[in-house]
């Protein structure tokens, strides 16, 4: 059973370069970085997607572009979720920040920057949130060894 808003969204909001499909009850858009902010703005203002749930990234090491930034939105009106997938390259892992649209973007984009090194253009405060000041590298990238340690407090002996 598909929510009626999905048909409207798929017909009305499919960007030129992207595509839309329903996967496990979530409408998924595949976007280019330039389309992210306009699409999110339309979701917010025209389609009542009032909660920005989550942003994370997937590191497809070996593929180009390497990173896939994944945004999730929820509408308390339609009671459905939308996922936006944006591919960005390793050389320039930058997408637009959604801080102008949603308050929750500030802290969640900080985490994604911590973990994957994705830069959010327009988010002025990308200080570490789960990591600490001066941490080198981005631990959830596939190239970061799981066992690598960066102790802030030096080991005794």
């Amino acid at each position, binding site marked *: 059973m598909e929510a009626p808003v999905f048909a409207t969204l798929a017909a009305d909001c499919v960007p030129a370069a992207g595509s839309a499909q329903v*996967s496990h009850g979530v409408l998924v858009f595949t976007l280019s970085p330039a389309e992210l902010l306009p699409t999110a703005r339309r979701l917010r203002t025209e389609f009542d997607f009032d909660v920005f749930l989550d942003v994370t990234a997937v590191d497809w090491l070996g593929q180009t572009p390497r990173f896939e930034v994944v945004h999730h939105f929820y509408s308390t009106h339609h009671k459905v979720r939308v996922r936006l997938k944006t591919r960005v390259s390793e050389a320039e892992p930058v997408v637009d920040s959604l801080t102008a649209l949603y308050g929750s973007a500030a802290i969640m984009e900080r985490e994604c920057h911590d973990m994957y090194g994705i830069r959010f253009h327009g988010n002025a405060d990308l200080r570490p949130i789960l990591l600490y000041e001066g941490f080198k590298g981005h631990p959830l990238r596939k190239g970061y060894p799981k066992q690598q340690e960066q102790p802030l407090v030096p080991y005794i002996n």
Partner: protein
Amino acid sequence: MDAPFRPAVSLIANPVRSIFEGTLRDDSVIVNIGPSHPATHGTVQIIAELDGERVLRTDVHCGYLHRGFEKECEDHTWHNLIPYVDRLNYVSALINTFTYCDAVEQLMGVQITPRCKLLRTLLSEYSRLVDHLTCLAAGLMELGAMTAFLYLVMVRDHMYEHLAALTGARVTYSYGRIGGLARDLPDGWLLRLEAIFKQYEDFIARVHALVDRNRIFIDRMRNVGVISTADALSYGCTGVILRSTGVARDLRKDTPYLAYAELDFDIPVGINGDNYDRYFVRMREMDESLYMMRQLSEMLQSPAMAGPINVDDRRCSFPDKALVYSEIESLINHFKLVMDGPVVPAGDVYVAHEAPNGELGFYLVSDGGGTPYKVHCRAPSFVHMGGAHLMMNGGQLADIVPTFGSINMIGGECDR
């Protein structure tokens, strides 16, 4: 003569850089609350600028309990993650496990059995009850209500023991399985449940009588830590915080999962979005959980619901132990499930359940193997930390403690 003073450890770099570059005014001061402070429950750091006792602005830092949960998940089979996800929100561990299992099951296209669905729903509500009891008890104790704390924690401890009788552990149970549960209910478990409910009702009535109209409690809680509906939505607040502002938004009603569509229950909401409303919404939600569990207990005892708790699917369910020792197919099946893990088709899924703190979501990516390619947890506590300053700014320094307590930040899921 005297040796020069040497510190026992070398000076350690500050892990946190405050966003405040100097004070707003000449007579204000910046103080540091936490990360090791009894009132911060977990380890969280609040950098606050104060004008006397009034909080001008705050900068909230978390991450002190970060242990690389998501990185570790990429190195273990889907089954092996169950003990890890338990340790996200360790006060209501069962809900984490069920959400995670639900996400993997959706990716695999597995339908759990009707009895498993009822049991998971009952245990989810039991977890919510325990979580709210813990949060309320701690919050009341911080305001000096030691009696209420002892009442609530005593009831909670009986619930912990009762859950231990089912799962073998008090707090982190590892009880869920992909495609089912570890074991069925022991004899007499539902009878004991009813006895605990009676005790709960007795003591919760005493707490209502002690606290609800208590002048001190009301003065400390009402119109303190207020957040508006618009702010709560914009800052991604879900669960009790959003409902305390008057919005009846609950995933159990909005996007029904497990057996919630078959149950009769209400969504309690607040009026003001202040600490008092969050207290009361939690108290009322516990009553609703109890009401749901009584319905579920009755359903579970009907002969029609006496079926198996695990799906008969060799991709995820372990074969019967007697067969593992007696026939080669089951032995190979067991070996492959342990060594390679359940094979989950390539794809991604986002599944969210209504946890006691709000929307707990798992975003899983599989590349078709026995270990996940990526596990991401959308932790309600973490998102709430992004909006916590709204509830603390403009209040009194002493009000940070009950406000922070009513947000119910759990370090395990917040910092992952």
